[in-house]
C-alpha cells in the first residue's frame, strides 16, 4: 500500500449520520478512485477523479459525494449513512485508469 493512506481505518455509524473518508497520496498521481468491496460483489467503483477539481461517477455513485481539492487528496462523503453502505472502502491511485493501481489499506465501515 505504498504511498496511499486512508483514514479512519474503522468506523461505526448510526443510520442517518454523516462522515467523510479521507485518502491522501504522496506519489504525485493524477488518477484517484474510490471503491467499495462487499462479499461476493468484488470491487465496485464509486467515483473517480482524473485531476484536481475533476470527478466523475463510477458504477455505484448513489449516496456518495466526492471532493478533489488538490492533487494529493480525494475524500468520500456519506451525507446520510444507510446500512446498505456497510462495506470496506478502498482508495486507489494511478497515472490513469489503464495503469497499475496502488490501493490504500482500506476503511471498514459499519452502519447500524
Amino acid at each position, binding site marked *: 500500500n505504498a504511498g496511499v493512506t486512508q483514514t479512519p481505518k474503522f468506523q461505526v455509524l448510526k443510520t442517518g449520520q454523516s462522515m467523510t473518508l479521507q485518502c491522501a497520496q504522496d506519489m504525485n498521481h493524477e488518477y484517484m478512485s474510490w471503491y467499495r468491496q462487499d462479499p461476493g460483489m468484488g470491487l465496485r467503483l464509486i467515483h473517480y477523479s482524473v485531476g484536481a477539481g475533476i470527478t466523475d461517477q463510477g458504477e455505484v455513485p448513489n449516496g456518495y459525494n466526492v471532493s478533489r481539492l488538490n492533487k494529493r487528496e480525494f475524500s468520500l462523503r456519506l451525507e446520510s449513512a444507510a446500512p446498505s453502505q456497510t462495506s470496506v472502502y*478502498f482508495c486507489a491511485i494511478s497515472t490513469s485508469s489503464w495503469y497499475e493501481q496502488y490501493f490504500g489499506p482500506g476503511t471498514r465501515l459499519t452502519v447500524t
Partner: protein
Amino acid sequence: SQKIEQNSEALNIQEGKTATLTCNYTNYSPAYLQWYRQDPGRGPVFLLLIRENEKEKRKERLKVTFDTTLKQSLFHITASQPADSATYLCALGTQPSNTGKLIFGQGTTLQVKP
C-alpha cells in the same frame, strides 16, 4: 449489459501444480486488462497488465493471456506454492484512456495445499 465474470467458486490445487484462473467479459472493448492479488484484510496488489494487442505476458511464475475474440483472459501460476493462496482479481480499463474507468471482476480465491 456489461459484465466481467470470474469463477466465484474457490480453486483448490496441490502444491507444485499450475493454477489457471479465468476472466470473461461481455459488452466491453477493453484496451488493457489487469490482474491483482488480494490477501485477507488488505488492499489489492497489482501483478500484471496486458494490452489488447498482446497475446501473452509473463512475469516470473505468472503468465497472462488475452483473447479479444473469445473475450477472455487466463491467469496462470506455475509451480504453485501455499504462499500463492489468495484472491485474484481481474480488471478492465475502459475507453478513453485518460478519463476511463477501471472495472473489477468479483475475484477467484485460490487455495494451494501443501
